Each structure stands twice: as structure tokens, then as C-alpha cells.
């Protein structure tokens, strides 16, 4: 329905010729920007509202009673639904350790939470639909669980630079009673806040995407990022790292690249690298953990993401 309206606008009102690059690019641009921005607002609002019912304090209380493995699985699952900001990574990290949650379980959460940030989920859903979103979340969980277990097994407790005093006795999180109206208002404010921050990136991303869509030949993309290039997955993963926090701008590009021959596993690796591995977060964590631990954390996640990409390309 929306596509038809854009067709009317571009081909009839603006009287642009059909089947031509410029008009196709413009059509694609209008269609995609409005669709993505609309879905972005809706999904971020819903996700934020749902997440207001989960707090890191509650998750910590719950996880402190679980053992390894079950703890890794649950920590990764909680990473999906708990609100998380990379600026709180340190207090969260120390807070988990204080509650005697094993290091590996803490890392499962630290890998899963940014991977499932609301912007990435909203963009994925808006652009690729629920199937790819589900694959992304599922494989993200796998990376978070396995990565956490590996880091837990290596025995790196001495690599934490700050002495963590465990909390004595039972850990109990106070339940805050927040009226639904307040939750709605908070979610609305938060959504508008994010929207103000990212709308420009979305438009630029779609604009560049529209350009690629209209002008870059498919053969070129297939040869660089498609099945012809066996190193496409690690390449995409490494390219994704410096693009942190720009999921909003990069996702539209990934969509175009995928429609033009980039394999879906490569796309998944690219998306995960953008969200899960962030250099600013590494800088923040450097204050509480040694470079060695950060390096192990990053390389484990990187290898996991590359593995997911190859695995997926091989299955499909």
C-alpha cells in the first residue's frame, strides 16, 4: 500500500519516467526512509516499554542464585530484555561480580546486552523482517553463551584490576512500583530522544543505499562480498567494529548489499560486529580490567561472530 502511494508520488505527481535509474533511486529512497523511520519509532517505543518491567538489579538477584551454564544461558537471555547502556558497563560489571556471579556468566550478559540493543533490533525488524531478526537474536545468544563459557573456563579472575568486595548474605533487589502512565511517558521520551539522535544517520544510510541500489553493479558486490570471496565473512566482521553505534546508518546499506548478492551469513556477521564490538566500550572497560582480559573478550566474540557467518553461509 505504501509502495503504491510512493509510485503515485514519483511517477504521476512528479512525472518522473518509470524504469529509469534516477526515478528508481528516488522511489526507493522515499519508500525506505519513511518505512524505516515509522517502524523504528514504533518498535523502540514497544521495546522500551516492555523493558521498563525488567531491571538489572532484579536480573542480578536472580542470576546470583544460578550456577555456570544455566547462568550463562540465562544471562544471555536477560541481555535481550534488560535495558543496557554501554556507559553503565563498569558499574554493571562490578555489580555482578559483587553478587558473586561468575566472571563467565557476567560476560555472557555483557556480550548479549549490546548485541540486542533496541536500535539494532528495530532496524533489523524494519528492514529484514522477523525471520532475519530471529536468526540474529538466536545466533547472538549462541555467541554470548559460548563466549561467556570460554572466558569463564580460562580463569581470568586475576585480570580484574579493582578489588571487588562481595556483598554479604542474600542479595535482594527492591521492587519499585511505577504507574503505567509514567512508564508510557518515559518510553515516549526515550523514543523521541533516540529518534533525534539517529534520524539523520538513517536518512544518510538509505540515501547511500539508494545510490548503490541504482548505480553499483551487482557483479561487483557478488565478487567482493558474495560467495566468490571466501574471506567476505572476516572482512565484514572487521569492517563492522569501527561502526559502533551507527547501526541505524549501516543497516540500510547492509540491506542493499544483501539484495545485490552479499550472503546472509556475511550480513549477520557484519551486523553483529557493529553492535557487539565497540571500541568506546573497550576504552571504558579498561578502567576495571586488564588489556589481556579485554583482548580475550574481543577476540572470543570476534571469532564467534566469524564462525556464525561461515556456519550460516554453509547451511544456506
Amino acid at each position: 500500500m505504501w509502495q503504491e502511494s510512493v509510485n503515485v508520488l514519483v511517477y504521476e505527481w512528479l512525472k518522473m519516467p518509470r524504469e529509469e535509474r534516477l526515478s528508481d533511486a528516488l522511489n526507493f529512497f522515499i519508500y525506505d526512509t519513511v518505512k524505516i523511520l515509522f517502524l523504528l519509532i514504533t518498535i523502540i517505543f514497544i521495546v522500551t516499554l516492555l523493558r521498563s518491567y525488567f531491571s538489572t538489579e532484579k536480573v542480578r538477584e536472580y542470576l546470583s542464585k544460578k550456577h555456570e551454564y544455566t547462568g550463562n544461558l540465562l544471562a544471555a537471555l536477560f541481555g535481550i530484555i534488560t535495558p543496557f547502556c554501554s556507559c553503565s558497563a563498569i558499574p554493571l560489571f562490578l555489580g555482578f561480580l559483587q553478587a558473586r556471579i561468575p566472571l563467565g556468566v557476567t560476560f555472557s550478559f555483557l556480550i548479549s546486552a549490546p548485541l540486542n540493543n533496541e536500535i539494532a533490533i528495530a532496524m533489523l525488524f524494519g528492514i529484514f523482517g522477523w525471520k532475519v531478526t530471529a536468526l540474529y537474536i538466536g545466533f547472538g545468544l549462541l555467541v554470548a553463551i559460548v563466549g561467556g563459557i570460554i572466558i569463564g573456563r580460562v580463569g581470568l579472575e586475576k585480570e580484574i584490576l579493582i578489588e571487588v568486595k562481595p556483598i554479604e548474605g542474600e542479595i535482594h533487589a527492591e521492587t519499585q512500583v511505577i504507574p503505567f502512565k509514567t512508564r508510557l511517558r518515559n518510553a515516549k521520551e526515550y523514543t523521541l530522544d533516540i529518534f533525534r539522535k539517529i534520524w539523520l544517520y538513517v536518512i544518510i544510510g538509505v540515501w547511500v543505499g539508494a545510490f548503490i541500489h541504482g548505480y553499483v553493479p551487482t557483479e561487483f558486490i557478488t565478487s567482493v562480498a558474495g560467495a566468490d570471496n571466501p574471506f567476505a565473512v572476516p572482512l565484514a566482521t572487521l569492517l563492522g567494529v569501527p561502526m559502533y553505534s551507527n547501526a541505524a546508518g549501516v543497516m540500510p546499506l547492509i540491506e542493499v548489499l544483501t539484495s545485490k548478492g552479499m550472503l546472509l551469513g556475511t550480513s549477520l556477521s557484519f551486523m553483529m560486529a557493529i553492535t557487539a564490538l565497540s571500541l568506546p566500550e573497550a576504552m571504558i572497560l579498561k578502567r576495571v580490567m586488564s588489556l589481556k582480559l579485554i583482548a580475550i573478550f574481543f577476540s572470543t566474540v570476534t571469532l564467534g561472530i566469524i564462525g556464525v557467518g561461515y556456519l550460516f553461509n554453509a547451511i544456506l
Partner: protein
Amino acid sequence: MKIEILGTGCAKCKALEEAAKQAVAQSGKFAQIEKVEDIMKIMEYNVMNTPGLVIDGKVVSTGKLLSVAEIVDLIKAS
């Protein structure tokens, strides 16, 4: 009255400190405002989401940039 802002120096934490200053001025109460950046002190309050707002030793808000009006309400309530 003592108001503490817990935060390791993120943008939201600075914004919350500003809002708290304005709120104190608006509320007309006498309050001492202190920014707590030491991670160990923040941990003692058991706060895992910064910025946090503490009034007279009690944590009243975490992980949220409150508006001036909201802080005024919190000041009046305690």
C-alpha cells in the same frame, strides 16, 4: 539536605547534575550537591545503572536523566 549524583562522567551524568542544581534553586531548599565519580563509592550504593540520584543517603533514581520538575518532586518528598 545532601544530594549526590552518581556517575562516571558520561554525558547523561553531567546533564543530571545541571538539572539537580536547577531543581534545588527552584525548590527553595538549602541543599549541598555533590558529584560522585569514584566507582567504588558508586558501588557502595549498589547502583548498576548510572546516572544515579541520591538524596540524604537514599538512592531515589537510577539509569535515568530526570527532568528538573521530577527532581523538585523528589526533593519535596524527602
